[in-house]
């Protein structure tokens, strides 16, 4: 695109896009000043500044318990989803059989089925086997929801990977297992990490399924936030939201760094 002269229509286009971008970003940023408000009511700009809502959050055992549950849930389910999903993606990429390849559609179903229906289904199963309001139940459900991201991302990575390298490693006497860890995995690592970050954030953010299946000591942060929001707009949520947005920001940075690492690898 030339820098020299922009036609009026191109200037108009840029202004339009600029406004759209502001509209996208402002709601995400607006909660930050809100969370430092000293007032009970959410007015903008806040009449005074304070840390009272952070204090309210950090000193409330119920919020702390929910935060702990969510962090344990997101960490363990994203690790499990990454292991299971990477294995599945590797198999899907390797197979010659059309029938097995079509399993990909089945494994991506959790992304396609509307989340409320998934939630009802999981609730149904858990009610039979006594997994309602348990940590293992939450983890298992989020493994299923996070897996498609891992499979998608790793499949993209594997398609870019030159399979002859693996064949060479195996012809030199490595078995599949060793060849995978020594040759394949290092090359698809950025895709695996991308998938894991997606699975992590998807589990941290997941609300609808946990509305149905989490409870008791194992209420997720999102379930608590959702119920709190339905009743009243408590500024404590602004403090929690700011912290969650901070996590998202770190995730975007990690993604960008991860992307740059993979680009550098591609050039090498």
């Amino acid at each position, binding site marked *: 695109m030339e820098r020299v002269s922009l036609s009026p229509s191109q200037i108009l286009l840029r202004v339009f896009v600029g406004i759209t971008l502001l509209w996208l970003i402002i*709601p995400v940023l607006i909660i930050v000043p809100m969370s430092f408000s000293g007032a009970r009511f959410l007015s903008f700009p806040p009449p005074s500044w304070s840390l009272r809502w952070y204090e309210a959050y950090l000193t409330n055992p119920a919020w702390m318990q929910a935060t702990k549950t969510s962090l344990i849930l997101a960490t363990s389910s994203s690790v499990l989803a990454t292991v299971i999903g990477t294995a599945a993606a590797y198999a899907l990429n390797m197979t010659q059989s059309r029938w097995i390849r079509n*399993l990909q559609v089945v494994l991506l179903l959790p992304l396609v089925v*509307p989340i409320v229906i998934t939630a009802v289904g999981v609730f149904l199963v858990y009610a039979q086997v006594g997994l309602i309001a348990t940590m293992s139940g939450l983890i298992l459900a989020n493994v299923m929801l996070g897996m498609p991201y891992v499979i998608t991302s790793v499949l993209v990575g594997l398609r870019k990977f030159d399979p002859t390298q693996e064949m060479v490693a195996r012809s030199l006497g490595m078995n599949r297992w060793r060849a995978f860890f020594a040759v394949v995995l290092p090359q698809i690592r950025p895709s695996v990490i991308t998938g894991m970050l997606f699975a992590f954030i998807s589990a941290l953010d997941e609300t609808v399924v946990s509305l149905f299946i989490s409870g008791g000591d194992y209420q997720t942060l999102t379930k608590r936030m959702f119920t709190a929001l339905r009743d009243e707009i408590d500024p404590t949520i602004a403090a929690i939201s700011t912290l969650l947005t901070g996590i998202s920001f770190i995730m975007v940075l990690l993604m960008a760094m991860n992307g740059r690492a993979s680009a550098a690898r591609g050039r090498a």
Partner: protein
Amino acid sequence: MAQDANTGLTSEERRERRMILILLAPAVTVVGLLLIGPLLWMCWQSFQGPDGFTLVHYQRFLTDTVYLSSFVQTFRIAFLVTIAALLLGYPLAYVAAKSQGIWPPIILGMVLLPFWTSVLVRAYAWLILLQRRGLVNTVLVESGVIDKPLILVNNEFGTVMATLHILLPFMVLPLYATMKKIPAELEMAGASLGGGGWLVFRSVFLPLSLPGVIAGSVLVFVLTLGFYITPELLGGGRTFLVSMLVSRNIELYNEWGAASSISMVLLLLVFLIFRLASTLIPFERIMGTR
């Protein structure tokens, strides 16, 4: 690798196949037990009444006006959100794909940060912005544009606004990926043949970007059909979407048959949309695996 033409499969190949199945087993088991199994059970349940087989749960679609109006409202909102997302997302992706230097990462970053922010956080932010004494009303009243605060939330407007905000990245990202692949030489060729900017755009760029348009639109439309959080929090009871119809039937009335039949109809519609779209572009492309 020793190849034995007579048996078809060598022992090596048989071992390979077994390994593929073992690697897939955990993933397939999880999806089978937690998703496909329950879906089949719900399908069966939707035909069950107190005296065995019945169609009564599906008859309600014809007799109960709540069902019909809920589906109509859901589809209307899905159309609105998809068209608005296309109108906002296409220019955005276009500028991101055409700009150079530091601009593409900045633009994409501004799309990705909301994308990675919790849906609940964004719904909350819109609640703050749009409420009676929220930022939008304050600015409008103080600047004298209006003299009474507008009702922007607890209605369909609030729901559409927040849903659009949450789903716009799902439109922009496939569009951007598709546009990035369109070779600039094609447009130059068009221009060298005497086409003006608009003509070249319309006859070269736009048709080549259509796969992205389809992928983004299908994603946004289908996701809106199943959306739950924003209509629940920002609809104020005035948006009663299909997802809420499902959850109410279970939470309030414990009506598994009704909830199952509604789920089956919604699911069928979603599958139908994917099926139709996949006649135009491959399913893997919509989901971003290709």
